[in-house]
């Protein structure tokens, strides 16, 4: 299956009752799949008039207690930020998919990881976090979609699946979950027949002094729980590594291949792959830095996740970067050249490849 279709089918199996979308490449297979399979199951599908409308339809359906979802690609996610902030403010669970493409502006339809800041550092207005999953395979895209609905319901907070054009378009074999979805009761939802239940209120506004501050403290407590329970990270060959690659999603696949090639040449290379980008595996990285002196962060951006890697606290370890913005995809040969430069040539000479920074500093 294509990644986009696997996400759609996994969502259907996870019990999504309402899907609202808007066409944008490279996620179109997802909305097309939903347009066929949701109505066939008697569930709601709407091609909305805009991404703004789609996310606000999600808001309404989630307010009514239904598992709800929308999907888009980078420019569409910019439009959805308003609704995402309101979902958080009103504590509504929802699953949002971003199949990232090159930007800024209309950019292109090539793969990108340039929406990391938007996904992990807020995006919309107000103090908030989404749980952000970064699948690296079609199988993982499906599995994380299944998980997303449970996590969104558990914390009453939206969850973002952050893929890219390659994850969305790529075909791989996938085994889909057969388990029956089990959404928790939602006594806070509006609509239906109340039958004696007291009226419910879905809102994010209060003009009374201190109320919104208290809500924010409540959200903060929720985020601490999420950090404790939901962090996911893959560590590969880090134990004896002289250099650790840090990458997620599509770039982590490229890095895995580089790791294999490097190990075959006797170079001790490891990989840390954050699966949740928020919460971020700061501790795992800091611990690895106690033993490993060199880190190389690879991204399809000008350098966004690298700020979190630095924030992890690397001690005396050096940090390097290789990134390709605007739809560029890092090449194995370029990553190998950097590893060679650091581990074999001990930084002698210069690297001509664009997008490479040896001894990266926040500047």
């Amino acid at each position, binding site marked *: 299956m294509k990644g986009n279709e696997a996400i759609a089918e996994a969502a259907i199996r996870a019990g999504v*009752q*309402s899907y*609202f979308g808007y066409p944008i490449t490279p996620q179109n297979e997802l909305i097309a799949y939903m347009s066929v399979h949701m109505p066939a199951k008697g569930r*709601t599908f*709407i091609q*909305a*008039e*805009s991404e*703004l*409308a*789609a996310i*606000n*339809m*999600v*808001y*309404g*359906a*989630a*307010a*009514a*207690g*239904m598992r*709800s979802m929308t999907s888009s690609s980078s420019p569409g996610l910019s439009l959805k930020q*308003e*609704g995402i902030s*309101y979902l958080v403010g*009103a504590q509504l669970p929802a699953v949002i998919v971003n199949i990232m493409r090159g930007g800024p502006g209309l950019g292109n339809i090539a793969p990108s990881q340039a929406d990391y800041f938007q996904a992990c550092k807020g995006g919309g207005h107000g103090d908030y976090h989404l749980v952000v999953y970064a699948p690296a395979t079609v199988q993982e895209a499906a599995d994380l979609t299944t998980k997303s609905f449970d996590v969104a319901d558990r914390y009453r907070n939206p969850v973002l699946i952050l893929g890219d054009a390659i994850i969305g378009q790529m075909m791989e074999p996938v085994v889909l979950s057969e388990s029956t979805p089990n959404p928790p009761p939602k006594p806070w939802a*509006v*609509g*239906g*027949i*109340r*039958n004696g239940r007291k*009226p*419910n*209120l*879905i*809102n*994010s*506004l209060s003009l009374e002094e201190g109320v919104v501050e208290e809500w924010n403290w409540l959200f903060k407590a929720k985020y601490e729980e999420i950090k404790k329970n939901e962090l996911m990270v893959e560590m590969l060959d880090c134990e004896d590594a002289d250099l650790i690659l840090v990458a997620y999603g599509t770039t982590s696949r490229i890095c895995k291949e580089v790791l294999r090639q490097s190990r075959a040449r006797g170079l001790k290379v490891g990989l840390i792959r954050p699966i949740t980008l928020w919460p971020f595996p700061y501790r795992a990285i800091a611990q690895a830095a106690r033993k490993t002196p060199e880190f190389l962060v690879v991204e399809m951006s000008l350098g966004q996740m690298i700020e979190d890697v630095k924030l992890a606290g690397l001690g005396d370890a050096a940090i390097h970067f290789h990134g390709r913005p605007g739809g560029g995809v890092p090449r194995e040969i370029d990553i190998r050249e950097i590893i060679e430069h650091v581990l074999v040539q001990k930084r002698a000479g210069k690297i001509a490849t664009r997008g490479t920074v040896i001894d990266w500093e926040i500047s």
Partner: protein
Amino acid sequence: MSDMEMEKIAGRSSLWDAKPSPYCPGCGHGVVHRVLCELIEEYNLADNCVFMAPVGCSILAYTFLGLDVCQSAHGRTPAAATGIKRARPDTFVLAYQGDGDLASIGTAEIIHAANRGENITTIFVNNAIYGMTGGQMAPTTLAGQTATTCSNGRDASLGMGNPLRVCEMLQSLAGVTYLARTTVHTPANVIKTKIAIKKAFDVQLKRQGFSLVEILSSCPVNWGMQPVAALDFVDKKMVPQYPLGEFKVGGVSVTPGA
């Protein structure tokens, strides 16, 4: 006849908590809420009604209405209402919007909800100004009318646009089943408003598509008028710009006032 023998034919709605109205003196929102509460009680809808509170003065409705309330982002009420209605078709969805909300920032959402024939009822309160933010020019502000963002009066020749007629705009859409414009500046018109809203409710209850009632309303504080002068402004200035009557009945266009 003594007091004891009098029959009580009207009183405070049981859906409206015994709290002071949050609205300014002479504002039409309270009258419109009252009419809605009466109809919800008459139709026995309180148990499955969701009131969609918009961004604007009427967002405060959640503080006193004894109904499920869902607040939505500015202008997005038709989209959020669509989400609720599609998710729970057994819910009576009452969307309440003002002119800035519906006719400016949420123009796309209202047109497409109407065009899809969403089975919701929209109450559109048009007072020709932004109330909650303190009296800025609205899309429905009349030509020459002053506001904090057009202190010399709205002037289309200076690029401020013309007063937007929502009912006329929505009339051509096939998804719209019932469409009317009323006013609440006199008791007789309040009764006409109630009749129009009743028809709109019937459309949703019979699952016949989209219904909208636009209600002209006064905003004395932001218009800078005494309440009585504001009612006169509705009568003399707003009604000529916004003709009263039904625009669509049973999905068929009719000429207002005919």
